[in-house]
């Protein structure tokens, strides 16, 4: 130590120390970042983007244009962000099976890797909402069911129905059911506002509140049918139908039997 401290006033000491500190920080950062996130090297990233561009040219460009600039029948995708692609492609809505009123949820055409590639390509065009990281989607830990229910009834129930079963919109459009939707996709839908849905930005509904909404939806999805068969959780229409068909139907059956026996 003595020998070291002897040089502490040396001219080269300060620049050397600075270099050491920078090296240490750099090394720590590179090790830490490699361990916690999948931040990839620029080279890998451009490979992914190129891969996405190839898929895009084959599967999407006929409607969305060769440079995703949009066309007569499809919107521009510049600035829609990776979250939008992940939602639309990941839930099978895109590519559309036909030009009907609304893209419907179906078996996805592209697998997870392909979806990620297209998302990376679209995200590379202009900044937009990003795919939420797994760690920021821990709704079980960060959400509050009751608060989520209140938010859901305020913001979502008017289209998606009180229990998230979906509902009708104008001209054949509809708000789809929220049952069985991945939390990531619910989150992305709120952030990007697909189809007829409005965007619920982080200022309108904070990320924590979004997680509460997801928690409530999952609670509704997993809630056992407390009063017996749920009848679709769509309110009095199915109840009335059952009341007439099964309720009065059975009673008329009994009445016919009672009157028959008298013969």
């Amino acid at each position, binding site marked *: 130590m003595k020998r070291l401290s002897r040089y502490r006033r040396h001219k080269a000491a300060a620049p050397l120390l600075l270099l050491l500190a920078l090296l240490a920080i750099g090394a720590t950062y590179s090790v830490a970042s490699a361990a916690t996130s999948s931040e990839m090297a620029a080279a890998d990233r451009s490979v992914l983007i190129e891969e996405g561009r190839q898929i895009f040219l084959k599967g999407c460009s006929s409607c969305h244009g060769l440079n995703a600039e949009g066309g007569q029948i499809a919107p521009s995708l510049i600035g829609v962000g990776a979250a939008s692609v992940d939602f639309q492609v990941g839930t099978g809505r895109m590519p559309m099976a036909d030009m009907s009123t609304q893209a419907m949820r179906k078996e996805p055409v592209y697998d997870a890797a392909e979806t990620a590639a297209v998302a990376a390509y679209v995200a590379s065009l202009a900044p937009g909402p990003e795919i939420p990281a797994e760690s920021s989607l821990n709704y079980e830990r960060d959400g509050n*069911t009751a608060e989520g*229910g209140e938010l859901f009834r305020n913001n979502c*129930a008017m289209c998606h129905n009180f229990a998230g079963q*979906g509902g009708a919109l104008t001209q054949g459009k509809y708000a789809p059911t929220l049952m069985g939707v991945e939390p990531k996709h619910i989150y992305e839908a709120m952030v990007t506002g697909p189809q007829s849905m409005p965007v619920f930005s982080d200022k309108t509904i904070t990320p924590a509140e979004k997680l509460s909404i997801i928690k409530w939806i999952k609670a509704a999805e997993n809630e056992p049918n407390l009063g*017996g068969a749920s009848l679709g959780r769509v309110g009095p229409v199915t109840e009335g139908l059952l*009341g007439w068909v099964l*309720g009065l139907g059975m009673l008329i059956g009994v009445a016919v039997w009672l009157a028959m026996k008298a013969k």
Partner: protein
Amino acid sequence: MTVETQLGNVANYVDERTGAAAWMKKNLQKVFPDHWSFLLGEVALYSFVILLLSGTFLTFWFDPSQREVIYEGSYEPLEGIKMSAAYASTLHISFEVRGGLLMRQIHHWAALIFMAAIVAHLMRVFFTGAFRKPREGNWIIGIGLLTLGIVEGFLGYSLPDDLLSGTGIRIAEAIIQALPVVGSYLAYFAFGGAFPGEAFIPRIYIVHVLLLPGAFLALITAHLMMVWYQKHTQYPGPGRTEKNVVGYPLMPTYMAKAGGFFFIVFGVTAFLAAVASINPIWLYGPYTPGQISAGSQPDWYMGWLDGLVRMAPPIETHAFGHTISWNILIPGLIIPGILFTGMALYPFIESWITGDKREHHLLDRPRNAPNRTALGVMSLTFVMVTLINGGNDIIATHFDLSINQIMWGTRFGVLILPPLAFIITKRLCLSLQRADRELVLHGRETGTLLRLPHGEFVEVHEPISPEKAYLLTSHEQAPPLELPAVDGRGVKRAGALRNKLRARMSIANAEQITKVSADDLKEIEHH
């Protein structure tokens, strides 16, 4: 001392003090005709008893107050949410009171069956002409019960103060407000201030549990006493006349049947309540005016009114500082008003058209009154079309349709389909009359083919039984009214225009396929 003598002593004791024996003897032997369709009214009656019993149970815990409380019960998704005491106590009944949810569901299913049975009973009475003299008054009481039932059901649906029922109350408020000039004041009085206020739930609670059930009891009593006094109608058949009632005595046959049937109605209601969820208020959440759910519907007996409101085009006028919302006023008040008034007055309208002022205790077969049957089917078609539009959003999502298509379809449908239903039904009735005539004249087709010696094939017809022939020919076919426009001296009679209308309707009403007469039958026998 045997059981019989013990019973006899008790009966004697009562009889010596009340003189009930003679009355009991007479009335316990009262005869009722037997037909399944006569039990529809009984279903309604028994459902009412179930409603009284289950409703009383619910009052033990229901708190009819719009006082704001914070929920601390066992249903976790609503933990800490602000709500009215009415809603919180309904949650308490559902989740903490033993058997509470089952009782709530029994009460609600019984209400749906009650209304369905009333409507089915009304159809039976209408299509068979049971409302004719002397039963016009009882018909009107029946219409009163139907109307009260709709109101009572709606109030019950409104009481829990959940998101769905609050939406219903909001629409009711809009309909009150649509009344020209007085509407906004009436709404203000009803709600004790601005909507939603804190007065409405306590008020409708008292109406729901005291006033209307009282009115129900009074009207049902009157309804049944009149059936008792005027005696039950019966279907036509051999041995049945306008002057007798063929059937079984009250004691023991009907006592046993009716008693058993009550428990079956209770059983079916309890079964539904046990297996099928109804009005899951915990999913709806508490009512706040800022929230609404997609696909908000009323119960089915209000659904047709909702459908009418949903299909009304947006028309309103502004005059003398008042807005008249025709889009609410017409479907919400005027059309139901016309329908219910017309329904109540129908017995008088029909007797005016037919000129028939006699008593009728034998029922019509619906085909033998084609005009009435067609009118009934026309009215039902109207209600069905509007009911479909009442559920347009649910139908749209579940059958992959556009809500706009359904609305436009029902807008035209409500104008086109009822008259079409009238024409088709009338033709069907006349065809059935023709088939009856064929049956009497040529007998039943046996399906046996016979080859004649010269090679021709004929189907063997078998004559029908005399009972069946009687049933098919016993009804009367009244000719249309003779209402000449001028009297014997060639002078135009007073009210000629009215008479012309009456004569025309009478001719349309009397359109029949001439039935086989007794003379015709004799002639056939001679063949």
